[in-house]
């Protein structure tokens, strides 16, 4: 992560707030009075879920927010590097059985994290329906999983890195697109 790179700011704090509002509007429109619960994927998916839930409270919709740590469901356990996952744990303090669950992550890329999250979610119960909300869809799916609610769609290359910073988690706010300097050695 130390190689030189170009950094382009994609969303400023205002644009993120707009994105959160957009997600809230879409969800309110489609979920309406259903029994709905939010589950955020650690770490920033949780923040996103909480912000959207707060926005919906203004519309008189109160949805509980659970958290999900997908480390134990990932399929890349063997490829982990020297950085060992510190488990945050999951906290889903309500029953998922028969309700509509909206899963939150800040970015969708290959779809593998979401796949792991779906496995994890199912271990907590049998929801009537599971939907996916993301702040940024940057493409390049490796498995057939698509988000239901998207605030911003972004064209990227695989070499690029989309970095979301939330005040609550990172102490600053913004979304940037990082492009490593072209390496001639392929």
């Amino acid at each position, binding site marked *: 992560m130390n190689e030189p790179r170009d950094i382009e700011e994609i969303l400023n704090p205002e644009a993120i707030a707009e994105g959160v509002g957009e997600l809230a509007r879409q969800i309110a429109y489609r979920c309406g009075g259903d029994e709905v619960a939010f589950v955020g994927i650690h770490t920033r998916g949780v923040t996103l879920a909480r912000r959207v839930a707060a926005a919906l409270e203004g519309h008189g919709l109160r949805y509980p927010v659970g958290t999900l740590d997908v480390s134990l469901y990932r399929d890349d356990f063997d490829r982990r590097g020297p950085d060992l996952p510190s488990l945050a744990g*999951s906290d889903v303090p309500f029953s998922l059985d028969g309700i509509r669950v909206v899963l939150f992550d800040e970015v969708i890329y290959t779809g593998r994290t979401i796949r792991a999250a779906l496995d*994890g979610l199912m271990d907590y119960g049998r929801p009537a329906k599971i939907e996916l909300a993301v702040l940024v869809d940057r493409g390049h799916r490796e498995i057939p999983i698509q988000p239901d609610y998207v605030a911003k769609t972004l064209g990227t290359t695989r070499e690029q890195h989309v970095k979301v910073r939330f005040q609550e988690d990172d102490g600053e706010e913004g979304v940037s697109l990082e492009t490593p300097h072209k390496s001639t050695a392929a």
Partner: protein
Amino acid sequence: MSELKPRKDLLDIEGLELPEIEHVLSNAVPFKQLFQRSVKKVPALRGKTVLNLFYEPSTRTSSSFEVAANRLSADVTNFTVSSSSVVKGESLLDTIETLQAMRSDYIVIRHQAAGVPDIVAKHTGASVVNAGDGYHAHPTQALLDAMTFREVHPDYEGRKVVIVGDILHSRVARSTSTLFNKLGIEVAVLGPGTLVPGGRHDFMKRLRSWDEVFDWKPDAVYLLRVQLERQEGQFFPGIAEYHKMYGVNTQRLARMRQLGAYLMHPGPVNRGVEITDEAMRYERSLINTQVENGIAVRMAVLHWLQPETDTN
């Protein structure tokens, strides 16, 4: 993410660094949370194999590792060598060859001879977890003890634990006291002179009676199991005398209650020896919590270790 050197084996506590201990203990917490779900299993070690190799019978520890491995979705093979056909030391290398052929990713081993897990670890790419070797070490017991103590005392630093019983021959005492010391928990021991190691062991304060114990005001009393078959007559005059001198009876329990001291024991308990029946119902007994935490800690250990079997 914590920056830790990848570690293949867990052989003892001495060799562990504090960040590694913290990593295991903190990861054990979310593992324990899984036990509240109806689905207690996660797929983290799906496709991996764990060999439970027990040269010394221990249903508890073996089961605990088995449950831990199962809850991580690993495949578990139990291999118990009955004590009647104790494998001679000389054939250890042959046994290791056989184990290699089984291509296990993790080998959980208990052996009556100290150092056997070290030898196995040297000769295999699998991650070796020492589940107790001779008088030497029982690191997962120590980790589960630390987890249990920290649950009731989140401000554990500077607190005090007295370990009572056969300190000399106890791998539990050795590993747990070493770990507690690393965590800044003071350890004292109480036991007959025949069962407390001679020489100087600076990290262990020696107390000579229960009165001294209560004056010391421990936050927990950790009773060791008396190995009845091994010791009666040789190290102390008899069970009755042991119970009288070192057991937790009604009066001692009352004083523990006054102090608010917790009770710990690695199990299985010899009722009427280390402890009276009444003490088994003590409201501050952590014995069952220790069992539950054992599974969580062993999951965290298996999840942490990195076998060298993935690459050729």
